[in-house]
């Protein structure tokens, strides 16, 4: 078997953060302060990723996902542990490593704002020294999967967020890197744009056999793209396995949301009494109930509730990434 393109062994990353003081005087004192605290953003993580894999790298905000990606990209140096990307140590060989990776940090663009997209592409071609034939081939491939006519000659600042994200992803793939890191690329996009971007990532991965590491909060992204997922929280690895395996556990879960009027907490107590095994939450007049359909159907739960509570509005959702992560974190993996 070929060597894994990403090999991570027991990496930890600690940040030294200044304890800020309040007010102007505090700000002045901060200048000379040695009052640091250590934040362990990534805590003893190990994994190997093979060429061509799409890995969903998940976790709640502040879990340490971006920090891990920055270490793989060579922007950050691990505090301890070993990391090899394409056989080199990224932070020691940043420029060399950069030829073989592409990165998209959601909502930060590497494109030239005032210029048509094609100019940013030409620039990347020259900076990465992409051979002419390969560049042309890549452009015609792009034309086959996206509406390039519309994008290429449009100044980036005139693009919608979706078009820009799409363009940034295409830019990251342009030099045909072995690995592309996508850090929350679909954040803030509408449903149809998300679908388009998923399709795009999938075809790029298929055509070029590019390894993709994707962080997202959108379970739809994960469903559409990732065969394997890795979950971290508080810097610690909680889970690393096939998507199918995870679905085996959570596929049968649905989130039932109902809007009630009147005494929300009273209704909640009533529902909790009726279904003591189910996790519930309230937020602004909505009650959320996590239902395991293998045990009780959602409709049955709803009918039971309706007998005693006046329901004004109903939503049924797939289990969200956050819910899955929380369940894993709570140790529901059996």
């Amino acid at each position, binding site marked *: 078997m070929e060597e894994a393109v990403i090999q991570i062994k027991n990496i930890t990353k600690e*940040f*030294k953060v200044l304890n800020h003081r309040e007010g102007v005087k505090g700000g002045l004192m901060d*200048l000379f302060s040695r009052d640091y605290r250590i934040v362990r*953003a990534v805590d003893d993580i190990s994994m190997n990723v093979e060429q061509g894999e799409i890995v969903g790298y998940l976790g709640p905000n502040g879990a340490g996902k971006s*920090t891990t990606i*920055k270490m793989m*990209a*060579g*922007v*950050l*140096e691990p505090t301890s542990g070993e990391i090899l990307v394409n056989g080199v140590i990224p*932070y020691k060989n*940043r*420029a*060399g*490593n*950069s*030829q073989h*990776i592409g*990165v998209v*940090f959601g909502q*930060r663009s*590497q494109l*030239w*704002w*005032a*210029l048509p997209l094609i*100019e*940013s592409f*030409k*620039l990347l071609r*020259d*900076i*990465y*020294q992409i051979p002419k034939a390969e560049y042309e081939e890549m452009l015609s491939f792009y034309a086959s999967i996206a509406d390039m006519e519309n994008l290429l000659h449009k*100044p980036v600042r005139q693009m919608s967020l979706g078009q820009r994200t799409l363009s940034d992803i295409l830019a990251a793939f342009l030099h045909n890197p072995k690995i592309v890191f996508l850090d929350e690329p679909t954040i803030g996009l509408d449903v149809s744009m998300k679908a388009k971007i998923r399709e795009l990532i999938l075809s790029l991965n298929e055509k070029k056999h590019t390894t993709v590491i994707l962080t997202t909060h959108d379970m739809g992204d994960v469903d559409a793209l990732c065969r394997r997922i890795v979950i971290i929280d508080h810097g610690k690895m909680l889970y690393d396995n096939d998507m199918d395996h995870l679905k085996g556990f959570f596929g049968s879960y649905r989130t039932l949301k109902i809007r009630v009027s009147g005494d929300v907490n009273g209704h909640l107590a009533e529902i909790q009494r009726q279904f003591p095994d189910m996790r519930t939450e309230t937020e602004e007049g909505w009650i959320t109930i996590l239902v395991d359909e293998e045990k009780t159907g959602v409709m049955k739960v709803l009918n039971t509730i309706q007998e005693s509570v006046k329901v004004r509005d109903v939503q049924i959702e797939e289990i969200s990434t956050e819910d899955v992560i929380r369940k894993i974190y709570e140790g529901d993996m059996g």
Partner: protein
Amino acid sequence: MNLKKYTSLLRAGIMESLNYRLSALVLFFGNLVYIAIIYYLWRAIYASSPTDVVGGMTFTDTLIYVVLASSLFSFMEMYFVWDIGRSVQSGKIALDLIKPMAYRDYVFWSCAGTLFTNFFSVFLPTFIVIEIVTKGAIDFGMNLVWFIPSVIMGVVINYNIDFFVGSICLYTESIWGINMMKQVIVLLFSGATIPLAFFPDKLQSIAYHLPFQSIYNTPLSILLMHSPSVSQVLPMILLQLFWCVALTLFTSLFWFISIRQVTVNGG
């Protein structure tokens, strides 16, 4: 060595700056307003002086110097410190660091297009206007030939100082204060606002031992010379060259140390 990346960045920068025609216009008219103000300011200074010659310069000499200095400043000042500071704060620096190019080259060549545009939109018109108004106060001779390497080295020295100050931004979150301090020091000691000839002796001698005067004062002095001899110009050019090399070495080393602040501590 592959020059394509640099020319390509230059080209993109030129196109990008042409897109901001409005800001070029603002720069141009801002410069005009500034020139009008200094005209009256210096006229007042000369009117209150008992002699026609102050600090070895006549009113016309001074006016030509300050007008050219201000247009040279508009052309050469690139506000790198803001760029670097902003990209540190927003985290965009991560994207720039993973380009297959040294960061200092990437930033410089990304902004070099603006220099190019500013040269033609600000400096050249001012130069021509002065030439017409003064009926040829500036020679068309060797002074122009020497001016070219001198102004290029001025740009390099200026960039090094900005890059150094930008590197300090890696340690602190407050770019504003540091940048203001830098601006004041450079504006004063470079001769960009007041000709060094007007400084008291002590201050003048300090200024000539600092790198800042190599940014604006040297190219300007060379430009204003009348058929300068090699022995006149060479010491000035060599001093500039010295500062170019010394500062490039120093700021590269300082950057190398400072960037660890980002990679190790996360900024």
